[in-house]
C-alpha cells in the first residue's frame, strides 16, 4: 500500500488520477448521468441543494452519491495514510461566502472546472469560453496572492470536528436510500422533505452503488495525488510548476478518448447538453468562479477531498456551495440551456466586486 501511495504522491499521481476520472466520467454518462456531466461538483451540489428543498427547481433535485463518495473516499485515504488532521479557524465565514460566489459564477456557465474540462472533452466548444474565464479569474486571484492576500492560518482542532463532514455525508446517504416522504399536497404532489426529479438532469443518474463506488475510488486517488483543477493552472502561472497541470491535461485527453469510444463526442456549439451559447457570460461566470476558487485555495473537488482530511474550513466552503446553489435557483441567477437567467449577469458583476474586496482586505493578522 505504501508503494501505491508513493506512486500517487509522485509526479505520476495527478496524471493517473486525471486519466481515471477522464475515463470514469464519460462512463457514468453512459450509465445514466446527464450529458458531459459524469461528474460536476457544482452541479451535483446544486442537485443536493434541490433534493433538500433549498431550491425548488424540479428538474435538478437528487442526492448525488458521487459527492458522498468523494468525501468518504478521501477520508479512508487520509485515515489510512495518517493525514486525517482536523483543523479550522482560517476565516471560515469568508470561505462560506467564497463557496457561494464560486457557485453563482459556475452556474452562470453551467459547470464547475471539472465539468468545463469534461464539456471540452465531449466536444462542447462553449466550454472554451468558460475555461478562458477560469484562467482569467485564477490570474486575478494570483495578483491578490502576490499583494499579500491571506485567509490566515488554521489551527489544529479536536478529532470530532474532522468527523462532522463525513457524518453529514453518511446522513445524506441515509436520506438518499430512505427518501422519506411526509405526505402529498392537495394537488397530489409530494411535500418532501426529500425531493427527487422525475424529469430533467436531476432524474438522470447511474445506479446508486456505481456512482458511490466511483466517488469513493476518485476520492481515495485524489486525496493521495492532491488532484486540483484550479491549482493546476494557478501553480503554472504562480510557481512555474506543472505538476498538477499534467493531471488536468490527462483528464481532458482521457475524457475525449472515452467519449469518442462511447459515441458521446459531438463537436459544436449548438444543442450541447445542459449548456448555453452565450460567450460573454460563459466567460464572465467562470471569471467569478475562478477567482473565488483561487482565493479559497482550490477547486470544488479539492475542497471536498480536504473535508475528508478533517479540514473544517473547506467544509465551510462546501456548505457555502450548497447554500449558494439554493440561492442561485431561487433568485434566478442560474442559467438554463436557453441562456443566462434574469439576474445571472448582475450577480456575476456584484460577485466580482465582493471577491475583489475580499482579495484586497483579507490579510494575515500577526499575533
Amino acid at each position, binding site marked *: 500500500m505504501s508503494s501505491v501511495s508513493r506512486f500517487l*504522491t509522485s509526479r505520476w499521481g495527478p496524471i493517473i488520477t486525471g486519466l481515471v476520472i477522464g475515463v470514469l466520467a464519460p462512463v457514468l454518462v453512459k450509465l445514466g448521468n446527464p450529458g458531459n456531466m459524469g461528474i460536476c461538483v457544482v452541479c451535483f451540489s446544486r442537485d443536493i441543494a434541490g433534493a433538500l428543498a433549498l431550491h425548488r427547481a424540479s428538474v435538478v433535485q437528487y442526492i448525488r452519491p458521487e459527492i458522498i463518495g468523494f468525501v468518504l473516499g478521501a477520508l479512508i485515504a487520509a485515515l489510512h495514510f495518517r*493525514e486525517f*488532521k482536523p*483543523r479550522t479557524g*482560517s476565516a471560515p465565514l469568508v470561505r462560506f461566502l467564497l463557496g457561494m460566489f464560486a457557485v453563482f459564477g459556475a452556474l452562470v456557465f453551467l459547470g464547475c472546472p471539472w465539468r468545463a474540462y469534461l464539456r471540452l472533452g465531449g466536444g462542447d466548444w462553449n466550454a472554451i469560453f468558460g475555461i478562458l474565464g477560469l484562467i482569467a479569474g485564477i490570474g486575478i486571484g494570483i495578483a491578490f*496572492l502576490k499583494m499579500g492576500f*491571506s*485567509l*490566515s*492560518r*488554521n*489551527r*489544529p482542532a479536536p478529532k470530532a470536528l474532522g468527523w462532522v463532514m463525513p457524518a453529514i455525508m453518511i446522513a445524506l446517504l441515509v436520506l438518499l436510500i430512505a427518501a422519506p416522504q411526509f405526505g402529498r399536497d392537495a394537488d397530489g404532489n409530494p411535500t418532501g422533505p426529500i425531493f427527487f426529479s422525475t424529469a430533467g438532469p436531476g432524474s438522470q443518474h447511474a445506479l446508486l452503488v456505481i456512482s458511490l463506488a466511483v466517488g469513493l475510488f476518485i476520492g481515495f486517488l485524489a486525496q493521495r495525488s*492532491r488532484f*486540483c483543477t484550479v*491549482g493546476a493552472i*494557478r*501553480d503554472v502561472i*504562480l*510557481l*512555474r*510548476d506543472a*505538476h498538477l497541470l499534467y493531471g488536468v491535461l490527462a483528464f481532458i485527453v482521457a475524457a475525449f478518448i472515452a467519449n469518442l469510444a462511447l459515441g458521446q463526442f459531438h463537436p459544436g456549439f449548438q444543442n450541447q447538453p445542459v449548456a448555453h451559447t452565450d460567450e460573454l457570460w460563459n466567460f464572465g461566470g467562470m471569471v467569478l468562479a475562478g477567482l473565488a476558487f483561487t482565493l479559497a*485555495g*482550490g477547486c470544488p473537488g479539492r475542497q471536498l477531498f480536504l473535508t475528508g482530511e478533517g479540514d473544517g*474550513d473547506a467544509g465551510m466552503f462546501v456548505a457555502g456551495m450548497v447554500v449558494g446553489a439554493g440561492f442561485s435557483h431561487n433568485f434566478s441567477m442560474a442559467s438554463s440551456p436557453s441562456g443566462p437567467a434574469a439576474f445571472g449577469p448582475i450577480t456575476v458583476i456584484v460577485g466580482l466586486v465582493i471577491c475583489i474586496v475580499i482579495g484586497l482586505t483579507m490579510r494575515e493578522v500577526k499575533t
Partner: protein
Amino acid sequence: MSDIKNVDARGLSCPQPPMLAKEALQKMDKGTVEVLVDSSTARENVSRVARNSGWNVTVEEQPGGVYRIVLRK
C-alpha cells in the same frame, strides 16, 4: 557562514507555503532557507518547487505533525 532565512508556513493553505518559500529563495543566490509546514501536501509542494529551482532539500519530521524543510544551495 551565510544567514539562515526562516519561513513559517504552518497553518497556511494552498498555494501560500510554496509561494512564500519560492519568494524567499528568489531573494538569495545561495545559502540556507528553513521552512516550517504542518501538512504533507505543503511539504511535497515546497520540496518540489525548491528542487525545481536547483535547491537541495532535506526534511525532518518534528513532534505535532510539523515538518522542518531545510533548503540549501
